[in-house]
């Protein structure tokens, strides 16, 4: 199973290095990969049905509790088959649709990686592994949406979808880690087996927020839906594959997968129902106001995803069943419709529904596929869609008190969806006359065959409900915990459900006949844009960017003075806070009596030196004052028994002064550059810092002293290290490495000075 997942990645890697030959016609060969995988998963079906699940374990980052545990149960099976099955069609379709694209190998690479990642998501048992693959789908989607790299719109769409799904990814990460630390494992199976009740945990709301947030962004639920229409910038195979049939269902899959763990609380159901309901209505409603084929499909996809969320939210067995069937129904007809839309686009060069008519006789197979898909979408018997719709109504009707309300919402949604399906799947082929400006190109079989196959399947699955049933049975037991008993049938007899289906179809058809897509409607909807989630989000993100700029500009103003003062204020604030709390130094002025006159005068000279260095208007006077200051320090070092120190300080100070003196030629005059206010401000900061240091020193001086080190040095300097100048012995022996490093610093400084003065770089040297 690991191989199955990895195949896509390996395929992608191979393409990087050997993609050239697989570009033109040969690209059809690429389809071998998904078809092979599809066959592989089909071959597993009997075992899954018999045993419930196939579990494979591969150790990976075991120390972090992350292993490659794959669990192929019913739910995974449905998704895996969808991924590889529709994947096969898309691969075939791509070979013709994208013919001539210079980066076709790259495109296939992405598709392969995407397929692998998606398989990883649905097959993994480990939550972190799920996250790993989940993020990969996000990234690949980013690449695919931005495939037309030179198109600004594509890039923006890619960024938007990445932003939203990326945000969701972060939520997912938070959620699963929270789940993992509560459940003490990342394996879903282990969690289930341990019977842990997340809903009893105090952090349940947080988990809910994280997980549902992740699922909603990925599955384009209101108000995160808007990335999906934008993502239609991607080439049609991508829209078909990622943005209708598979990736967007990852969120649905996640909710499905986790509902046994998280679903036993009303807040879970209510949230899903509410957002699912809003989304399905919102999406369906918007299809009426679109004229671009893919846009219509995008909104109908959003709506369908809403239905799925809504159904899972209902939480009953019937609802789960409906959702599972509807996933398949939707995948089949939506993929078909996308392929049809793509074919039309390819043949005519437009997707504008206002200009498309009368294509039927030019592209019969495409028309057939479109009509079949539209029928399934409409839920007209004997299509698979009819089955799905029945189950939806059955689920809503079984909801007791709120049944009427929920059913009404479902019916309304389905009516609008029917309209959308007809507009895309039927309208372009109806009528007799072509738009005069449109030239219809001939399509190669690779373009229409996949659509046709899927279209036919839409009906076949309806006629043979046992196929779907066989797949759903283990899936339902996987997510609901109970085996599936009743049998799917096309004909239930005359029931309320049938009535509702009839109403749906009738109203939908009427809507199709009397409401025509028009630019006026598009414009009408655009007026309400300012309250649309997209615009609001964009405004928020723009506001965030503005804040970012403000923040960055404020802190990184480029002015060194601000930097230093910020640091200083920070230091003074925190150190002051800590120091004031502990300060019990009593300043003992009586010790000043012991200060001798010459000490006093040395200090006096020091302080005057400081004053001159700071306030002198002459640079050289300041430097000379620095010299005086240093020499006064030497004298103090001599007072307190540090001849080596005095010597070194003296020589260094002299050298520094000389350096300054030599360097200062041609520097401009000292100017007063700052105003009084900033000088006072700086002065206050500087003095507070100085005061802090003084207080700190006094406080430390009050502490007992430990001279273990110096005693050791004093005792051993001559006996062991053969030197009498203990300071020098420390420098060359006890702490010789310090000195070694110190002279290295000097050597480097010399090199630095040398290069500073001598090196000139030409502008042409780019390094």
């Amino acid at each position, binding site marked *: 199973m690991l191989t199955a997942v990895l195949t896509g990645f390996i395929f992608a890697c191979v393409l990087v290095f050997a993609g050239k030959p697989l570009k033109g016609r040969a690209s059809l060969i690429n389809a071998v990969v998904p078809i092979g995988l599809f066959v592989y998963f089909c071959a597993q079906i009997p075992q899954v049905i018999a045993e419930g699940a196939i579990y494979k374990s591969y150790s990976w980052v075991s120390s972090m509790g992350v292993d490659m545990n794959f669990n192929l149960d019913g739910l995974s099976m449905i998704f895996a088959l969808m991924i590889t099955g529709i994947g096969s069609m898309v691969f075939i379709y791509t070979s013709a649709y994208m013919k001539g694209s210079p980066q076709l190998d790259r495109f296939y690479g992405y598709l392969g990686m995407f397929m692998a990642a998606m398989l990883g998501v649905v097959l993994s048992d480990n939550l972190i592994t799920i996250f790993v693959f989940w993020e990969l789908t996000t990234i690949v989607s980013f690449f695919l949406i931005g495939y037309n790299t030179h198109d600004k719109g594509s890039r923006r769409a890619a960024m938007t979808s990445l932003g939203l799904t990326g945000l969701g990814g972060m939520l997912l990460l938070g959620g699963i880690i929270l789940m993992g630390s509560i459940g003490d494992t990342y394996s879903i199976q282990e969690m289930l087996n341990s019977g842990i009740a997340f809903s009893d945990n105090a952090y349940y709301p947080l988990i809910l927020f994280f997980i549902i947030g992740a699922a909603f962004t990925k599955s384009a639920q209101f108000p995160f839906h808007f990335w999906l229409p934008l993502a239609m910038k991607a080439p049609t195979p991508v829209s078909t594959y990622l943005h209708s049939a598979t990736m967007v269902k990852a969120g649905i899959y996640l909710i499905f997968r986790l509902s046994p763990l998280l679903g036993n609380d009303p807040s879970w159901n209510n949230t899903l129902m509410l957002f699912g309901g809003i989304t399905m209505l919102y999406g369906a409603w918007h299809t009426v106001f679109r004229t671009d084929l893919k846009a219509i499909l995008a909104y109908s996809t959003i709506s369908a995803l809403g239905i799925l969320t809504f159904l899972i939210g209902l939480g009953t067995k019937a609802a789960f069943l409906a959702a599972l069937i509807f996933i398949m129904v939707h995948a089949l007809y939506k993929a078909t419709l996308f392929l049809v839309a793509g074919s039309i686009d390819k043949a005519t060069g437009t997707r504008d529904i206002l200009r498309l008519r009368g294509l039927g006789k030019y592209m019969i197979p495409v028309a057939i596929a479109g009509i079949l898909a539209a029928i399934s979408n409409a839920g007209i018997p004997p299509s698979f869609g009819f089955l799905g719709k029945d189950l939806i109504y059955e689920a809503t009707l079984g909801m007791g008190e709120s049944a009427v309300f929920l059913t009404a919402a479902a019916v309304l949604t389905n009516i609008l969806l029917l309209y959308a399906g007809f507009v895309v799947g039927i309208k372009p082929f109806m009528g007799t006359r072509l738009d005069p400006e449109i030239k219809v190109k001939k399509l190669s079989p690779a373009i229409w065959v996949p659509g046709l196959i899927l279209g036919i399947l839409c009906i076949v699955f309806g006629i043979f409900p046992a196929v779907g049933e066989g797949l759903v049975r283990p899936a339902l037991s996987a997510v609901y915990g109970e085996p599936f008993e009743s049998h799917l049938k096309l004909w239930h007899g005359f029931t309320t459900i049938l009535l509702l289906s009839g109403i749906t179809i009738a109203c939908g058809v009427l809507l199709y006949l009397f409401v025509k897509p028009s630019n006026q409607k598009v414009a009408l909807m655009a007026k309400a844009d300012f309250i649309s989630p997209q615009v609001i989000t964009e405004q928020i993100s723009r506001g965030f960017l503005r804040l970012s700029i403000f923040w960055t500009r404020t802190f990184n103003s480029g002015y060194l003075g601000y930097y230093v003062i910020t640091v200083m204020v920070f230091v003074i604030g925190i150190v002051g806070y800590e120091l004031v709390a502990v300060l019990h130094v009593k300043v003992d002025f009586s010790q000043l009596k012991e200060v001798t006159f010459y000490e006093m005068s040395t200090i006096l000279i020091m302080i005057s030196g400081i004053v001159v260095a700071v306030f002198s208007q002459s640079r050289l006077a300041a430097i000379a004052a620095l010299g005086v200051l240093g020499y006064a320090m030497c004298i103090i070092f001599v007072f307190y028994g540090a001849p080596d120190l005095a010597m070194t300080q003296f020589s260094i100070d002299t050298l520094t002064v000389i350096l300054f003196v030599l360097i200062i030629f041609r*520097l*401009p*005059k000292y100017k007063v550059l700052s105003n009084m206010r900033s000088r006072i401000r700086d002065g206050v900061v500087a003095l507070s810092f100085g005061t802090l240091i003084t207080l700190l020193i006094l406080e430390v001086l009050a502490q007992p002293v430990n001279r273990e080190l110096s005693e050791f040095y004093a005792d051993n300097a001559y006996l062991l290290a053969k030197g009498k100048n203990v300071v020098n012995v420390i420098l060359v022996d006890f702490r010789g490495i310090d000195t070694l490093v110190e002279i290295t610093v000097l050597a480097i400084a010399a090199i630095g000075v040398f290069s500073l003065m001598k090196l000139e770089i030409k502008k042409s040297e780019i390094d």
Partner: protein
Amino acid sequence: MTDIAIMIIITLGALFVLFAALGIVRMPDLYLRISVTTKAATLGVGMILIGAAMYFNEASITTRALAIVFFLILTAPVGAHLIGNTSYYKGVPLWNRSKVDDLKNSSNGPPENEVRKDEPQRPQGEQTAE
């Protein structure tokens, strides 16, 4: 006995240094300050050094003290000459009661006119601070 000699020598030395200090404060122009100070200080410090050498009464210390004296005698006049020389050419003025200035009229004298002309021609901001 030596102690008293040492005290006297050191006191004299300290006084000479003090005179030098007084001189540097009181003298009216740079050249006079240099004149007064360099040697007074050298002599004063030299005496202090000799006093210290006498106190320690040890060959190595004595030689060290002598070495310092030797060094001071060698360097002090050179330093005085240098700073006086360069200052003169930079245009540090003589005291207004000075009697003669032979250097001014000699071939080595300061290019007075040039200096004057030079001054205002320097571009603003380029002018070097003292």
